[in-house]
């Protein structure tokens, strides 16, 4: 760990193993403690508040990482489909999804959509909710549509949990996740301004924990962790300052993130777990909460590779982020076979070249466990940056 000499962050130490554990210890513990149900939320963005308002715990379902051997799902999805689609299905085949009563998928890409169908067919006892997120961001009709879509999804989840979602339920769910997202924004800001105080591996562990626990539990843990990190007296090192994109859905192994940092980078911004911290500001808790949640997606969210907002080109947003973070370079870390990410890369590359911002293209798979090649590529890139 790069910050071995700094005061350890307790939550990071405690949960480092369990955030990658596909026995889902935090989820099992919550179930046992509350006796309530759980919804697994496939990335990228799921309206988690709906599940929470139905009395369930929404949990991020980010495939199997490098924890499980593929034995069944490979025969269902072809070799040219990304890992997370296959490994999420594999988790179901090997009964690792036992703690989940319902699953939520969204219209992020074609493989994820077909996965929702395949999952529903093979495991009919576990409810699947499919949410169609809109792609016309400018029509005045979209907000009504999306509020209606959220009502429909809430009704479905309410039927599973036996708790009909009322206005107050949803308001308080939004409040809970507002609190969590504010903390996540805060910790991201801390890393952007003082990357020597908290590593990305630490930040990632905490953000990942937030997808696996009740916001009522994770919010104070993150607040405490921020306080510990702030109090550290680390000095900035001579490192290349980078903004990282491309990992918005399938997640790289934590060791890979560590390897990139240790190869001499400060990561100032990234799109890891982006769906869980999509909103730029708190969502209103007065008025119709379904509408508020819909409006937040349409007008209050950051750019995302699976949201095609013709008002804000993503390449321009990436350049803006690189400038705002005074980044020396951009690292594109894309999941292999991830079509939305790979398409974006073509636009990013053009924009980055135009702006003369150096960049490095890397591909990963969640199931990888050897990082030497990527480490060497990053080191070479860093050296070239430091010497120019």
């Amino acid at each position, binding site marked *: 760990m790069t910050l071995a000499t700094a005061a350890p962050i307790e939550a990071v130490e405690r949960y480092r193993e369990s955030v990658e554990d596909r026995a889902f210890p935090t989820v099992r513990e919550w179930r046992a403690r509350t006796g309530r149900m759980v919804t697994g939320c496939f990335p990228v963005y799921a309206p988690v508040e709906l599940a929470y308002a139905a009395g369930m715990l929404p949990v991020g379902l980010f495939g199997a990482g490098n924890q499980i051997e593929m034995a069944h799902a490979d025969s269902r999805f072809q070799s040219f489909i990304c890992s997370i689609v296959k490994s999420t299905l594999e988790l179901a085949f090997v009964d690792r999804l036992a703690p989940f009563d319902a699953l939520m998928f969204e219209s992020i*890409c074609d493989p994820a959509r077909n996965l929702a169908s*395949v999952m529903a067919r093979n495991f009919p006892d576990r409810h699947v909710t499919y949410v169609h997120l809109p*792609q016309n961001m400018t029509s005045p009709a979209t907000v009504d549509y999306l509020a209606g879509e959220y009502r429909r999804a809430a009704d479905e989840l309410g039927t599973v949990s036996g708790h009909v979602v009322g206005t107050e339920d949803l308001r308080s769910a939004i409040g809970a996740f507002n609190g969590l997202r504010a903390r996540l924004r805060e910790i991201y800001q801390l890393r952007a301004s003082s990357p020597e105080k908290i590593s990305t591996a630490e930040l990632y562990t905490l953000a990942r924990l937030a997808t696996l626990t009740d916001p009522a539990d994770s919010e104070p843990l993150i607040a405490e962790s921020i306080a510990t990190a702030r109090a550290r007296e680390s000095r900035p090192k001579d490192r290349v300052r980078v903004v990282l994109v491309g990992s918005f859905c399938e997640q790289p192994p934590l060791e890979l993130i560590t390897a990139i940092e240790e190869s001499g980078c400060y990561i100032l911004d990234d799109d890891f777990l982006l769906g869980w911290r999509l909103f730029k500001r708190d969502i209103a808790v007065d008025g119709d909460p379904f509408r508020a949640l819909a409006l937040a997606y349409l007008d209050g969210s950051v750019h995302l590779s699976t949201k095609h907002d013709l008002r804000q080109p993503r390449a321009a947003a990436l350049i803006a982020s690189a400038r705002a973070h005074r980044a020396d370079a951009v690292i594109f870390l894309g999941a292999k076979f991830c079509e939305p990410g790979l398409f974006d890369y073509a636009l990013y590359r053009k924009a980055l070249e135009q702006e003369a911002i150096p960049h490095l293209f890397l591909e990963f798979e969640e199931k990888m466990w050897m990082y030497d090649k990527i480490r060497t590529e990053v080191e070479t890139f860093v050296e070239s940056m430091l010497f120019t």
Partner: protein
Amino acid sequence: MTETKEIRYQGHLHELQKQLMGDYYAQLTAIATGRSDTKNAHLLIAGNPVELVRAFGMIPVFPEVNVLQLAVRKQSLPLIQKAEELGYAVDNCAYVKADVGLYLSGYQAPYGTIPKADLLLCNYVGCNVYLNWFEHLAELTGAPAVNIDIPFVRSADGEPSPGDVDYVVKQLEELIVQLENITGTSLDMPRLRRTVENSALVGEMWAEIKDLTKRRPAPYDAYFDSVTMMAVLYCLRGTDEAVTFFEAAREELSRRAAKGEGPLPEERFRVVIEGPPPWPFLRVFRDMFSRWGAVAVASTYSTVGGIWEFGFRHDPQRPIESIARHMLQYNLCNRTFLQRYDQMARYVDEWSADAVVIHSVKSCRLFSAGQGDMREYFVREREVPTLLIESDLEDPRYFSQAQLRNRIDAFFEALSQRRLTAASDAQLAAGGAR
């Protein structure tokens, strides 16, 4: 196995289609070269509002049709590579890459020149790549773009909610305003009704034509020959020419059906084919089936732009709502993967097929992601012999001829064997009973 002699697949209809498509591309070329000031909109095949575009006197441009024709002419690879040099990945849909390459080559194709879009009308019907595609075209060309968002089917019965229909109708009304601005004319309602009526007529005839392959032998191949009709169905839907073409098609194919003629000397196997064809090797691929006497009696690919065979018709009395319904519900792409299983199962039963062939293409994850599960379903749950093979629809690098041929041969060999065994079992049983 019967070794087929050189088969001539193409007849009168093909000639007629060539002529219509030639005229269509001549119109596009006239615009692109400044000889016509007709406005154009680029849009996508899956469930689209082409009737609105036509009602404004605009001409639709379909990038999918443009690039598939390049692939058929074996000219897609250099364009794909041109896009890859710009940073497009080997794993991105090759239709998009070929189109980007085509744009970078001045939009000059052997069949005509493509005009730059007056409007990039992205009808987001199922395929998420559509969104990327038109977003990239907007960046590259600077043309104005709009996304028409079509909620994917979420209900078990495939019905969109009233809210979904309302949402799409409202977006179409906003689109009308945009088209009015582009053309400087207001919507001519009688003209829209006529256009929609033409689509209804074509839909009706297309459904009748599809019904013909329920006969033995099927009068045409519902995969390979459908392609000829699909070009007109998509590029010219809503026009009088499309109606005339489909009248001719219905007549010719009905005549063949009445005479008991099929596309092959002998129909030995009736198959349902799922997935788009490998355009660069269409003929070679077809021959791999023909040599076994295998004829497609139905195909899912022929429903990408609309499903008419189960009863949907555009409605001139409610033109906008029926366009919305078509986009939401009556095309393959906006339906769930499991509804596709049901559609295919219906083909197997009602069109009396012996087997299912799944052609999995790397480019198109909309079609292919999860087809292993589909095979599992047909083999295990429905006990239908099912073959899963892989290549691509645009990129010739993924077509492995020898391997495909081996797989197809082995499959039909086994089917033949099965038939012989079943026949001798039946004989034995009959003998035993005597």
